[in-house]
């Protein structure tokens, strides 16, 4: 519905992206799916990984929040440690989302989540426990998964529309 708004947001975010982000549209696709790559800042656990994020805008965007999924695997309390890559992000919950919230703010929130996980609101209970109680082990496993999955350019799934 709000193509005007989406086009405007995409122009802004792709031209002056928030720090650490590269944003593009998949070839031959509508503006409703965005391919996003995030590299967290140096000296954080997930550096130097490059994480692919698939952002999908529902038809009633911006009244409904975007849907965000990691396409790169990561060992994180708030991201499902599987091929789905679902994320738990406060700003995207229906009770917090406002139609005036911009995708740039969502991206900021994602980067903050990689810098500072929120173990009290976990999707992966076990990883959250480890993060809280045995930070060194968590750090080590997270780093190992960065090396294993996140050093190449992220591969986005072919969008089936």
């Amino acid at each position, binding site marked *: 519905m*709000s193509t*005007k*708004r989406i086009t*405007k947001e995409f122009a802004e975010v792709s031209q002056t992206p928030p720090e650490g982000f590269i944003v593009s549209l998949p070839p031959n696709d509508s503006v409703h799916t965005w391919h996003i790559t995030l590299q967290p800042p140096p000296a954080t656990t997930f550096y130097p990984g490059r994480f692919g994020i698939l952002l999908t805008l529902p038809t*009633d965007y*911006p*009244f*409904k929040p975007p849907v965000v999924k990691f396409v790169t695997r990561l060992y994180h309390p708030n991201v499902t440690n599987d091929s789905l890559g679902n994320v738990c992000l406060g700003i995207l919950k*229906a009770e917090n989302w*406002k*139609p*005036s*919230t*911009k995708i740039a*703010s969502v991206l900021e929130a994602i980067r903050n989540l990689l810098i500072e996980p929120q173990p009290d609101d976990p999707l992966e209970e076990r990883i959250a426990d480890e993060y809280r109680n045995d930070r060194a082990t968590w750090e080590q496993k997270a780093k190992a998964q960065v090396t294993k999955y996140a050093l190449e350019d992220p591969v986005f799934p072919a969008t089936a529309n």
Partner: protein
Amino acid sequence: MDSEEEYMSPISTDDDEIMQDDSGDELSGPDDFDEDDFDEPDPDFGLSAKDMDKKKTAAHAVSFKVLEPSDIRRQQDDMMNDVNLILDLTKEDAAIMLRYFRWNKERLLEDYMDRPEKVLEAAGLNSSSSSQPKLQAVPGFVCDICCEDEEGLQTFAMKCGHRYCVNCYRQYLTQKIQDEGESARIQCPSDGCGRILDSRSLDLLVTPELTDRYNELLNRTYVEDKDTFKWCPAPDCPNAIECGVKKKDLDKIVPTVECLCGNRFCFGCANPDHQPAPCDLVKRWLKKCADDSETANWISAHTKECPKCSSTIEKNGGCNHMTCRKCKYEFCWMCMGLWSEHGTSWYNCNRYEEKSGAEARDAQTRSRTSLERYLHYYNRYANHEQSAKLDKDIAQKTEKKMVQLQTTSGMSWIEVQYLNSASQALQTCRQTLKWTYAFAFYLAKTNLTEIFEDNQKDLEMAVENLSEMFEKPINELSDPKLKVDIMDKTSYCNKRRIILLEDTAENLAKAKWTFNADLMNGSTLLLNKH
């Protein structure tokens, strides 16, 4: 001992009498209930002194009030008017403030007197001008939501000044109200703005249908925001119940309430009436039954074999007294024992005899014993549940019976009401009996359990007797002597039920029951978890 009338009154028939206590303009809202959020002892369980004086209340009964939709609306209107008069606020703003304070008028007034600016801001009412909301076209306007900028675009902003085009505002509100069921706390669409939408702005923006839905939802939040209110869980029932029993008291009392629609349920957990078992035990029990359903399923089967001739016997009434059609053997459906031994002595059909310690030495025996023990109670619990259903089928036939009786015996409609009372008594008593077995399962053996089991046994016998009479063919029912018997048995059943409930409730209130520690541990649920 008290008359049956007095025992029954708080929950059974005369809600009207209880309601009349508050029918004046004296409001029974937060004034009576909300002021004690703190953990002071509350031995009366929300009974006001007034109620206590009025009649001696039974230990198993709680005082409560049924609120119909008009009562719920009136209470809200009254409070809005009060706040509107006392504070210099419009009715809309008073409503927003009250909702923000979850209808605790006293706290609202107090906080507002202390720091009006801060309170207004927290409730989303930053400045208190009373100008009418209106739609407006603003030159050079670009809507931050849809990015439209056409000339003459109608726009709207609440007092916070966040202005959006009317189409976006409408779509936002439609989604919040229709899809998300929100009402009392719909915020301004601006990111980070907590200003709450008032009903006058809403009237301006949306269609009347949506306004109706909005008001309906607002009504719901009034009830849902208050700990002392609960919706009647019966499908399509629009009533709510007001009751002062608090969460922390639920290990001491089982607050059964009854709606005007006839639904009897627990105010604590909204499950159907489960006296005498406290809410926490009910939760444990239901979970256990769900977890062990495969083990226990075969038990509650509809058909069993005659213990004597092995022909298949189907149970199609609530009564446990079975007679084999083939060999005429009479036995008890529960324990498969000879019925004649049940008649008066009821040789402990309800009681589970613990095996002596020596027998239960090895782990395998112990685990078999614990399964046997569980099945003993589950069997009886499930049987009453089943029987209550069968009794209900019979109750539906009762209606027909009553019509027949009128024609065959010449009795009037009033004169055949005793069958209706009997059917009601059977249902209520079976509901109670059912839960006595869940309760007994968790009880540790003390001298109190013996009294409890005796009461249980007496109620069992009374119910079986009545159930048996109740299933008699219509030509026997018209016998005036049987009518008197049924009426006697009905009131006897009710009396036995009250005796049992009083005994358990009194001991529960005084924390005298000992629960089986093994069964209470190893579960995530705790009796005092609040």
